[in-house]
């Protein structure tokens, strides 16, 4: 265990995730407040952040439970909101394939938007499964720890950060920090632009299905463009 935590890859993954952790503070506080509003006691609120470990799912579940929605509706809505994890899991699969199953099982638990984007960049850059896994573990644990702390504070103390600070804007900025560096190749640009248009064009879909639908539109567009470029290279 000690050699894991002291490894350079683990420490780098942990340190690189700290700015994203700061960005998640307002999100974590709001999620803790939502659990309190749903009538959760301390342990249920802690259970949500420890076990569900997904801001979108926790907030949706809290809001729906506060409105008295049936359990089946809550479960289905949260599952749909988490459909993108299926895509992250597939995209991560080739990189985690060389690792033992217990590493795959542990890292899967830490698979979030932020950890996914940060670690796939690392795997791509180094092509080192073991180092990449340690980097993923470091970043994933940093996010997980920060998430527990901010959720508990939000539950106990309410939303401490004044809205006028606009700290919630740090969440989209963290995503921008992950996606902007990817936009260096034409197919990636096509994928992002198509997804961006589709997410607004499909905004009428229920249960925020436009997010996953737009993701699929972007992936298909990027892949088709990639093939077209290979078939008909620019002269």
């Amino acid at each position, binding site marked *: 265990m000690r050699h894991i935590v002291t490894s350079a890859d683990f420490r780098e993954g942990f340190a690189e995730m700290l*700015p994203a952790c700061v960005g998640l503070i307002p999100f974590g506080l709001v999620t803790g407040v939502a659990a309190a509003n749903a009538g959760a006691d301390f342990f*249920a609120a802690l259970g949500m952040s420890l076990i569900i470990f997904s801001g979108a799912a926790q907030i949706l579940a809290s809001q729906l439970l506060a409105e008295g929605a049936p359990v089946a509706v809550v479960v289905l809505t949260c599952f749909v909101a988490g459909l993108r994890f299926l895509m992250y899991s597939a995209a991560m*699969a080739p990189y985690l394939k060389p690792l033992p*199953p217990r590493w795959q099982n542990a890292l899967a638990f830490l698979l979030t938007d932020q950890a996914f984007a940060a670690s796939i960049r690392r795997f791509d850059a180094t092509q080192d499964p073991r180092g990449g896994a340690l980097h993923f573990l470091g970043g994933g644990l940093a996010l997980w720890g920060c998430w527990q702390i901010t959720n508990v504070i939000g539950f106990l103390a309410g939303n401490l950060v004044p809205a006028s600070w606009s700290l919630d804007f740090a969440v*989209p900025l963290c995503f921008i920090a992950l*996606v902007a560096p*990817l936009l260096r190749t034409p197919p990636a640009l096509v994928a992002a632009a198509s997804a961006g248009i589709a997410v607004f064009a499909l905004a009428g879909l229920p249960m925020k299905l436009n997010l996953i639908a737009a993701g699929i539109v972007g992936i298909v567009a990027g892949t088709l463009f990639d093939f077209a470029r290979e078939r008909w290279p620019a002269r």
Partner: protein
Amino acid sequence: MASALTLWTVIVVVGTLNYLSRLSFIAFFSRRAMPPLLARALRYVPAAMLTALVLPMIVSAPTLHSLATPRVLAAAVGAVVGFATRNTLATVTAGMTALWLLQAIIH
């Protein structure tokens, strides 16, 4: 207000489904070869999915009027810095500073 039983049912079921979604294809492809077409398409998951997630956080519906807001302009500053530096801390700092400045100018 939900009862303790309802809450814990939701926590366990949603938590389990969430974990199974995250594990799904990692486990599935750990013993099988991935079709080359799928492997190629999956390269575009980060660019497409993260863009689809982030844009609605910045603007609810893009119109000419809604595009000239401090949030959109600050996001553009963040995107330029993120593209150039590939650094999360620099992106967040630049974007937040731009947002605070723009909000101070408008008020």
